[in-house]
């Protein structure tokens, strides 16, 4: 019982916090894939841009909360411009073009940040300080806030896609963009706004995680690998699948560390991805035919 309360439950909480935040990042990635058929290699850099935009806004306004609104909007705008000017001309070409383009964009964003802010690591102070006695330990309030914020955001996104006209339009575009176009909907605008929304979501995740993970130009590269695993496990293009897979990975990382060398945990997660790709290429909840 002591082991359960003192060791297992705190690990479970750590895993939930990380998994929920990872879910936010992976959700944008899976929406872009589902809608545009593009594996966005620059998604990690949009996550990184969110953190740096946050640093810039906090520097001017001294308010994390203002940054939490302004930074995703700014990165969303960058996303919109990027989609219109670079991705749109490639939609009718093979997916490889989009893949190479976003890989190039990732390099451009990363080096631009390095030129502007330099390569040194930076820190954003958490807006919620202090800690709460929980499960026999003191748990940082910011992590509890992160868990709550991520959960609310994930719920809001689910409601957006299922209950609002805009969300239904996006889902319709994922299903059959040509039919939607025939019904008089401005499909290119749906694409642009969806890409911008995904960029803003990545930026939000970047800024929310910045007080815990710190900020540096490579931060996106390191997270995007996990996000890709989440998208593959959950099912390419499946939003619900991404959230479930993110939580599975968060919990697995946290719990397995108790019994395994952490290097082996990373190998185990990759092995799980390989098994899923072989046995069920569409992932946990992916559409039939995707990667099959």
């Amino acid at each position, binding site marked *: 019982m002591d082991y359960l309360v*003192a*060791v297992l439950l*705190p*690990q479970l909480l*750590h*895993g939930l916090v*990380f998994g929920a935040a990872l879910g936010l990042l992976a959700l944008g990635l899976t929406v872009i894939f589902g809608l545009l058929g593009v594996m966005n290699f620059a998604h990690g850099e949009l996550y990184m841009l969110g953190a740096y935009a946050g640093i810039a806004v906090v520097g001017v306004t001294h308010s994390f909360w203002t940054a939490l609104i302004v930074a995703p909007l700014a990165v969303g705008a960058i996303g919109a411009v990027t989609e219109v000017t670079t991705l749109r001309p490639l939609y009718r070409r093979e997916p490889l073009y989009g893949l190479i383009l976003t890989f190039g964009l990732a390099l451009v964003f990363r080096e631009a940040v390095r030129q502007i802010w330099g*390569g*040194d*690591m*930076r*820190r954003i102070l*958490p807006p919620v300080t202090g*800690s709460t006695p929980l499960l026999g*330990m*003191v*748990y*940082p309030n*910011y*992590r509890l806030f992160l868990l709550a914020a991520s959960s609310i955001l994930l719920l809001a996104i689910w409601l957006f896609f299922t209950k609002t006209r805009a969300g239904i339009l996006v889902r319709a575009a994922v299903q059959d963009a040509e039919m939607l176009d025939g019904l008089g909907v401005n499909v290119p605008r749906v694409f642009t706004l969806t890409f911008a929304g995904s960029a803003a979501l990545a930026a939000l995740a970047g800024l929310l995680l910045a*007080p*815990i*993970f*710190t900020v*540096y*130009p*490579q931060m996106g590269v*390191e*997270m995007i690998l996990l996000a890709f695993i989440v998208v593959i496990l959950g099912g390419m293009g499946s939003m619900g699948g991404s959230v479930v897979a993110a939580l599975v990975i968060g919990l697995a*990382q*946290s719990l397995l*560390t*108790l019994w395994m*060398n*952490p*290097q082996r945990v*990373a190998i185990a997660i990759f092995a799980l991805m390989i098994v899923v790709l072989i046995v069920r290429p569409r992932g946990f909840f992916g559409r039939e035919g995707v990667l099959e």
Partner: protein
Amino acid sequence: MKRLTWGFTVLVALAALVWAGAPAVSQPKVVKIGDLGSKVGVFEGYGKYQTWGVQMAVEELNAKGGVLGHKIEVVSEDDETKPAPAVRKAEKLILQDDVKLLVGAVSSGATLAVMDVTKKHKTIHWNSVSCAEFMRTTKFHKYYFSNQPDSRMQANGLAKYIVDKMGKKVYIFYTDYAMGQSDGRQFKTALEKLGGEVVGVAGAPLDTKDFSPWFGAINQSNPDVLFVAFAGTDSLRLMTQLHSFGMTKKYKMAGIDCFLLQQDLASIAEPMEGFVQLNHFSPYNPDANMQAYNARFKKKFGTDANIAAGSYDAVLFWAAAVEKAKSFDPDKVAEAHEGMCVDNTHIGRQCIRKEDHQVVMDMHLYQVKGGKNLPIARIAGSDSIGEAMVGKDPVEGFTWEIKKK
């Protein structure tokens, strides 16, 4: 027409003569040196300062006429903080750029890999940042030199202070690759030898994002001191997260050399308050030589010096050895290095031990107060360097097993 052709021929011949003669008159001879380090990744900051240290030494040497009448040029390469690219870039620096000295790498894993390359190509190799223990023992070769205190020197210098002044029950938390494993081995051995009790050990992979899964085990062990062997962005993240869990106040904290750069301390002053570490440079050390070096560094780069002092000294040592050998021949230069002393390093006179090519460097223990590394003790290099153990494992028979008291 014939006169015109002759005139043209003479003109071309004159131009050819001028062109052929010009380099000999206007361009000095050049010798290249290689700077190999992390330009991206977890040790990006360290790589930048290593480069600055090399650049500063080269600028000062060139102002005095270079080395053996040659102007020194620096070729910098990024090893991506990984062994494989480090080997590739080291090969490129040696075979393509023909560097006579290679300074680097930053990550211990990369440096250990590069040692095979410098041994194969007989290239003088200076390490001024990496601190894994194997470089001057089992991996040692005659072209390799170091002025970075390795894990054994650090353990010899810091473990006694921890046991005497901070507490006997120590938890060792290390980054799980060459450097951290080496630090863990050496500190565990040294602490136990001095009567300390290692109550737990754990390794987290390089570049871990979330350290909180390890905190439960640390808390369960209830140590007096939490000893952390991390560097770069890992250190910053770890301290931020430990602080948010209230653990920086709960335990006394100590760590390795290079745990964090002075430049990073300002942004993490509160979590780092009271942190004890061994280091070979601090801008807040009143040592006159350090202050003079720091003033020059600050004038050039607009910021305080740090680990840059190591690569700066490395280039000075190499230049002095080349002048002594009167040749760039690696065998002669390597021999000239052995036992050599240089007076104008960042901390004054320093000498290289002949047996294992380690600089016998005085180090300082520092404690962080208000975001500044303030010196609390000086440890003579002769007390920390330990005996030369080329080809041997200094902690043979080591085990990670926790001895229960």
